[in-house]
Structure formats: C-alpha cells, structure tokens
C-alpha cells in the first residue's frame, strides 16, 4: 500500500503536485485564521496538523523534482538554480 502511494506520487506531474501542495497549504492558512479566534478548538487544530503533514510530503517531492518552494528546501545537489532558475509564480507556466 505504501509502495503504491509512493508510485502515484512519482507519476504526478508538476502542476498536479503543486496543486496538491498548495491545496493543503491553503487549508492550513484558512484553519490558522479560524484558530486565531478559536484557539482551544482541538478538532480544528487536528485538521491543521493533518494538512501540515500532507503539505510537507507534497512540497518535499515537488522541491526534489521541480525546484524549491522555500529557501529552506535548497540542497547541495540541485544548486542555487533550484531556487532562482525555476519559473516565478507570476509566470503562466508556473501555474
């Protein structure tokens, strides 16, 4: 089962992976605003943590294959180009 999941991650294209990562990122941010005014809602906190976990998974696969989303993801093997020489978000081909 775990292997199948891994395989399906590998077969995902750039747009698909980014969409998954950003969907979870968005869910985190939306829940964050809710948690700001409902800090003791454990159900919301658990949902936040679930999305955070999923975001980290997709973002790290994305960074390995298509370039860093944050500077923290820059690693030796991909060089600085992994940050600076991939499409910037306002370009059509980045979306």
């Amino acid at each position: 089962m775990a292997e199948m999941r891994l395989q399906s991650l590998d077969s995902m294209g750039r747009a698909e992976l980014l969409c998954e990562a950003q969907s979870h990122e968005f869910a985190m941010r939306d829940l964050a605003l809710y948690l700001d005014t409902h800090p003791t809602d454990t159900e919301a906190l658990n949902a936040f943590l679930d999305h955070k976990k999923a975001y980290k998974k997709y973002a790290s696969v994305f960074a390995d294959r298509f370039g860093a989303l944050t500077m923290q993801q820059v690693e030796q093997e991909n060089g600085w180009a992994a940050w600076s020489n991939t499409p910037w978000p306002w370009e059509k081909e980045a979306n």
Partner: protein
Amino acid sequence: MFQYEKALQYPVKIARPNARLAKMIMSQLGGPNGELGASMRYLNQRYTMPLRELQGLLTDIGTEELSHMEMVSSIVYQLTKGMTPEQLEAQGFADYFVDHTTGIYPVSASGIPFSAATFQSVGDAIADLNEDLAAEQKARTTYDNILRLADDPDVRDVIRFLREREIVHYQRFGEGLRLIQDQLSRYTPDPSNPYAVNPSFDPIGGPPQPRMRKRSSI
C-alpha cells in the same frame, strides 16, 4: 521576519491578453480598497492590539493579503504580456503605458497612485477592527463590480476566489471584535459605559483619573 514561498496562493493562468480588463483589475492592487492597502492596514495595526489572539489574527490576515497582492499583480502582468503598443492603445492602456510601459505599479482604476491615506491605524482596537470589517466589505464590493464587468473565465475564476476570502476575513474580524468587546469591562470602572476606554492604550482597570490642575490665584 517574512519568508517567501515560490507559489501563488491560488493559480493564475490567463489565456487571452486584455489590457482594458487589466486596468480594472489593477485597482485591487493600488486602489482605495485594494490588497496593498489591506495588507498595510493589518500589518501596521497589529502592534498595539491588546490581545495575543488579535495580534495573531492581524498578522495572519495581513500576510495573506500580501499573497493576494501578488495574485492581482500576476493577473495584470499576464493580461498585458506580449501586446504591441498599438494593441495596448486600442484597449485604452496608452495613459498607463506612457508612464509605466507594462511594469506593475500600484494605481487605482482611475489612475490615482496608491496612498496610505486610504487606510488608518488609530491605535484603538475597537476603532481599528471596525475599520477592518468595513475594509473587507468594500473589497468584496469592488470584486463584485469587477465580476459585473469581466467576461474572461480565467480572470473570473481567480476574482471569485479573492472575493470569497474577503467574506472569510470579515467573519474572522467579527469574531476578533467580539473577543475584545467581551473583555472591555476589565478596562473600565464604569460598566454602564464600556466604550469609554481605549483597550489598546488604557491599562486594565481603566484610564487614570484626570489630575486636578493647580490654578494660581489671581
């Protein structure tokens, strides 16, 4: 500090350039109800908020507005990319073009440059949060007006997302206002007049009583 994430909050992929539409959308970057003003409003107001929850809320919404500013700018950038000067002029973009070419510069739809006079930070949580609620409604109205005029489906999709966020922010600001209103009695010695204090400035227990001025006898 702030950290940049190299992705838009919601994807922008506009197939057809349209400078006329770009000029309207531009208002949500540099106009009176735009995302730049929204971000500056919240990120400046947050320092003196009297509750940690409110400082957090303004930080998180103010940060999200920065990413909305980037989305609006991306729409304008893609709508004006690859056009000839003749096409730009034919679509009513000549006056913007002469000053900025197709560079992104924050102005309103009527060409007025962004001004910090479009928002306030008065250092009073009740006043500032009420302004924030109004600001979210004004931004929603502006997005509604854009949706009345824009027929490009790629643009409409993004504008609908941004409009939806104004509604969510309004909801959260309402809850934030309630959080501080529920605590106002701690700030005032007179429970019949809870609004006679500034919870961002006055200490718990109420403002110090005015001292009697010594008057020199004539």
